[in-house]
């Protein structure tokens, strides 16, 4: 069931309204405290000495000069710290039983495996002293050959780890019926075979990482402040890796300045601050510098994709076959190997494709480890299928919109069981496409494009479409088990009404810009009939919220929000029993409205929820067997992923004389089911689009042939500014998910998933009449200019 461009579903209450965020005043006034802002008297400042070599033996580490520098308290090599670790650093997703994963220590002992790999640490009284001393650490390296290029690394010509037998970490396959796939290709009227490179990206949250560990030697507890998305997972992993009893660790994520997956990890510096605080019995803190972040925080993407389509003469796709090489970087971080799997099921996109084959080989290189970055696997999958669908359209001479329409999974086919084995919850892909075409004025653009081409203008127009579906709301625990992920996918919530009628919500979700406090308060306000201002939301501190699985994979609302809604329902159930006792009626005769229970048929007989909270608190007159207080909890394990979808349309102007691409218009129609707060949904879509556009046009983590990262600053790594982006025109369709009681789907990653192929399709569309079929990302002016020359000498690039 879809309704076009509607907002929300609420008829009363605050859910569905564009409520302004409660988080904003503290952030706008500078009052919010990020990790870097915390004042911790007596803290030692840690600076990490990093390998300048992509691959080298660590021959010796001489700390004597550094140790004598002013203010230095201690300095350690990897060997000095080797005994601190109970286990190597964790990888939670061994995707195959035979996956190779070299032991990864927070400070390398004998072999540095990427530029940025830690080889020593220095601790001093101030940051400046520690930095000065770090420059005096004398490390003798013996350079080794480095595996830098992904395909070269896959050949095992050079090994990324000297004692490994291969760079190939694993091969993971999803081929339900290989013979049927082959038959489809053998019998296809049209085939398309494309090769795409997903360049490495640097997540570049505006707040770099930071850690501060405060030991309490006599209390036996460690308080870990970290700019992390995952305080709960971090606590468990810190405990396991450092050999500290988990309950002795309290992790607090204060205000966190963006993550995009890059703070969904367990990092060397978090472990180092913990073990050094343990060893020195003093607070230890670390603040990442921006150029350090480029090396020491995970990268995203990094894949070479080969996608083949088999279609009939009308362009109806009968089979999709995909092979990936995925760049793991030097080590497996928390979920590195699993990132391609999050896209593995989605290479047929929004299309009803009966035959499916996917395989991925994960490969080690001597580069910064990769891991989840906004979308994680799904942007890559969407890019491949949406680019390939345009290639198919060109091959059969059809309009890209029409080819999509011919192939969409019909709105009447949901729930849809895909050839890859997923059950798509709900969708109406054609409606979203139609809305996007209207929003962007597709017909008008095609006419203008034709006019410019006919008149030989040098500013060509291109329109690119991307119809996407993604799987998010991680995740049903049983499904995660089938994918060899070592944790579950549930989320916890507690809702309690305090004696004064105020409400506290405790959630295991951990926001870092998403506005959870606002959204959660809205859900609970409507459930209880109270004002959202009376609902406080507690999060991101394992002492307050002991159990949780944190925020990533567009899971917070569909999993965490559902847990909150169900906990609120349970609180109401209990309150109803108390109200029935108080009013001397049967519970089923009561209805809750506006925060009051009233008796059906005699509306003058009422009791307010707030009054019941006080009675439950005093416990003077509770029904037999009822426990005091109004509080309820829920741990919700979703029954399925959610499958948000939509169509984005990008419009570019390409200057054939310079190759410059201007993104001049952008329309996005997204469907994330019911919306709690459309204002926040808009913001998520805006930011997501910008990040996807950035991959298409601007950003790349570039390495030289020796494995040195060339893009360590914002002067080299081109995070787009306001001047490089247009305003975005948003539309929405609303197709509720049947998988959760709120009817919601995730929206945190959708914009990024959709936008990259839309933009590149637009550039190729502008130049397709010149014979251009592909341009590597980022689509720089130079690449555009060269593509014109390569495609048709004398018609564009040669001038």
């Amino acid at each position, binding site marked *: 069931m879809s309704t076009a461009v509607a907002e929300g579903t609420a008829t009363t209450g605050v859910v569905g309204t564009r409520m302004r965020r409660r988080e904003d005043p503290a952030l*706008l006034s500078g*009052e919010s405290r990020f990790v870097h802002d915390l004042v911790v008297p007596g803290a030692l400042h840690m600076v990490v000495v990093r390998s300048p070599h992509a691959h080298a033996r660590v021959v010796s580490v001489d700390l004597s000069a550094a140790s004598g520098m002013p203010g230095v308290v201690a300095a350690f090599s990897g060997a000095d710290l080797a005994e601190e670790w109970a286990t190597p650093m964790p990888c939670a997703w061994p995707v195959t039983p035979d996956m190779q994963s070299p032991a990864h220590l927070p400070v390398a002992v004998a072999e540095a495996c990427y530029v940025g790999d830690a080889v020593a640490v220095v601790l001093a009284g101030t940051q400046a002293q520690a930095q000065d001393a770090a420059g005096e650490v004398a490390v003798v390296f013996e350079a080794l050959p480095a595996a830098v290029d992904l395909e070269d690394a896959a050949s095992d010509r050079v090994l990324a780890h000297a004692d490994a037998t291969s760079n190939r970490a694993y091969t993971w396959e999803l081929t339900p019926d290989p013979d049927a796939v082959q038959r489809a290709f053998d019998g296809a009227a049209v085939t398309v075979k494309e090769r795409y490179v997903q360049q490495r990206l640097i997540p570049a949250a*505006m707040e770099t990482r930071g850690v501060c560990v405060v030991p309490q030697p006599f209390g036996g507890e460690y308080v870990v402040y970290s700019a992390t998305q995952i305080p709960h997972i971090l606590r468990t992993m810190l405990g396991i890796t450092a050999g500290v009893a988990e309950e002795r660790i309290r992790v607090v994520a204060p205000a*966190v*300045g963006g993550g995009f997956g890059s703070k969904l990890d367990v990092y060397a510096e978090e472990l180092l601050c913990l073990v050094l605080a343990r060893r020195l019995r003093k607070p230890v803190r670390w603040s990442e510098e*921006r150029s350090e972040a480029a090396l020491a925080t995970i990268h995203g993407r990094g894949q070479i994709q080969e996608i083949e389509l088999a279609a009939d003469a009308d362009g109806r796709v009968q089979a999709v076959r995909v092979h990936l090489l995925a760049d793991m970087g030097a080590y497996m971080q928390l979920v590195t190997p699993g990132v391609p799997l999050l896209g593995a099921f989605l290479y047929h996109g929004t299309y009803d494709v009966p035959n499916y084959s996917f395989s991925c080989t994960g490969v080690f290189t001597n580069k910064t480890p990769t891991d989840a970055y906004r979308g994680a696997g799904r942007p890559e999958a969407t890019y491949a299928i949406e680019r390939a669908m345009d290639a198919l359209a060109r091959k059969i001479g059809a309009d890209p919109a029409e080819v999509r329409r011919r192939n969409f999974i019909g709105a009447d086919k949901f729930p849809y069981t895909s050839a890859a084995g997923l059950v798509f919850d709900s969708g109406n892909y054609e409606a979203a496409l139609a809305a996007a075409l209207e929003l962007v004025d597709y017909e008008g653009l095609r006419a203008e494009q034709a006019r410019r081409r006919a008149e030989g203008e040098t500013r060509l127009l291109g329109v690119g479409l991307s119809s996407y579906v993604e799987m998010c709301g991680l995740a049903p625990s049983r499904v995660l088990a089938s994918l060899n992920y070592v944790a579950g996918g549930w989320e916890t919530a507690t809702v309690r009404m305090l004696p004064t009628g105020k409400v506290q919500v405790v959630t295991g979700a951990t926001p870092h810009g998403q506005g959870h406090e606002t959204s959660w308060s809205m859900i609970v306000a409507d459930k209880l009939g109270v004002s959202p201002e009376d609902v406080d939301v507690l999060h991101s501190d394992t002492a307050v919220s002991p159990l949780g699985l944190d925020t990533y994979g567009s899971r917070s609302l569909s999993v965490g929000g559902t847990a909150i809604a169900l906990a609120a329902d349970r609180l109401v159930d209990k309150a109803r029993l108390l109200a029935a006792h108080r009013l001397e009626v049967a519970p089923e005769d009561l209805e809750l409205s506006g925060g009051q229970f009233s008796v059906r048929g005699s509306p003058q007989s009422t009791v307010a929820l707030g009054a019941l909270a006080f009675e439950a608190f005093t416990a003077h007159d509770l029904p037999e067997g009822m426990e005091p207080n109004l509080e309820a909890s829920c741990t919700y394990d979703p029954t399925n992923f959610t499958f948000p979808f939509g169509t984005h349309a990008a419009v570019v102007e390409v200057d054939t004389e310079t190759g410059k691409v201007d993104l001049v218009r952008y329309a996005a129609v997204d469907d994330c089911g019911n919306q709690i707060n459309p204002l926040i949904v808009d913001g998520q879509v805006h930011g997501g689009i910008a990040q996807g556009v950035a991959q298409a046009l601007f950003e790349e983590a570039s390495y030289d042939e020796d494995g040195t990262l060339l893009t360590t*600053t914002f002067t080299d790594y081109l995070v787009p*500014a*306001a*001047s490089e982006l247009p305003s975005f025109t948003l539309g929405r369709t609303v197709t509720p998910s049947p998988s959760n009681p709120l009817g919601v789907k995730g929206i945190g990653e959708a914009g990024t998933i959709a936008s990259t192929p839309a933009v590149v399709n637009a550039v190729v569309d502008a130049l397709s009449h010149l014979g251009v079929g592909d341009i590597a990302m980022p689509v720089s002016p130079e690449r555009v200019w060269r593509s014109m020359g390569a495609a048709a000498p004398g018609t564009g690039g040669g001038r």
Partner: protein
Amino acid sequence: MRVTVTVNGTSESHDVETRMLLVHYLREVRGLTGTNIGCDTTSCGACTVLMNGESVKSCTVLAAQADGEEVTTIEAMAAPDGTLHPIQEAFREHHALQCGFCTPGMVMAVASFLDEHPTPTEAEVREGLEGNLCRCTGYHNIVQAVLAVAHSTELVP
């Protein structure tokens, strides 16, 4: 060396290292942590403050250069009673912040920009803020907020 800087209307004198940057002076010496550090190449604008009314990236100014000058940080933008400055209010109204890390610098840059361009076009806003990076919002709502402040009759920045 000794510097005397008026920050948010209060003048103080301190001994600082000659190499100390203004942003570190504000954060560490004056305890004003609202001004954030987002990069080390003067690219991101997170540390933007006003010096004598004009925006500067405080990671590119030495504390010594601020000697005798007047500096305004995000902490002074709201009124003492907590009423948000019109720019701050517009940012909230238009959902122009998400994680909020770039926000203090962005607000200060907007204040300076609007001082010089009271009624800008969208293109001018986008050009004017190109020195301030935001990773969350895609800038759409920031631009909307700035235009709303500039073209509002009641709000005088």
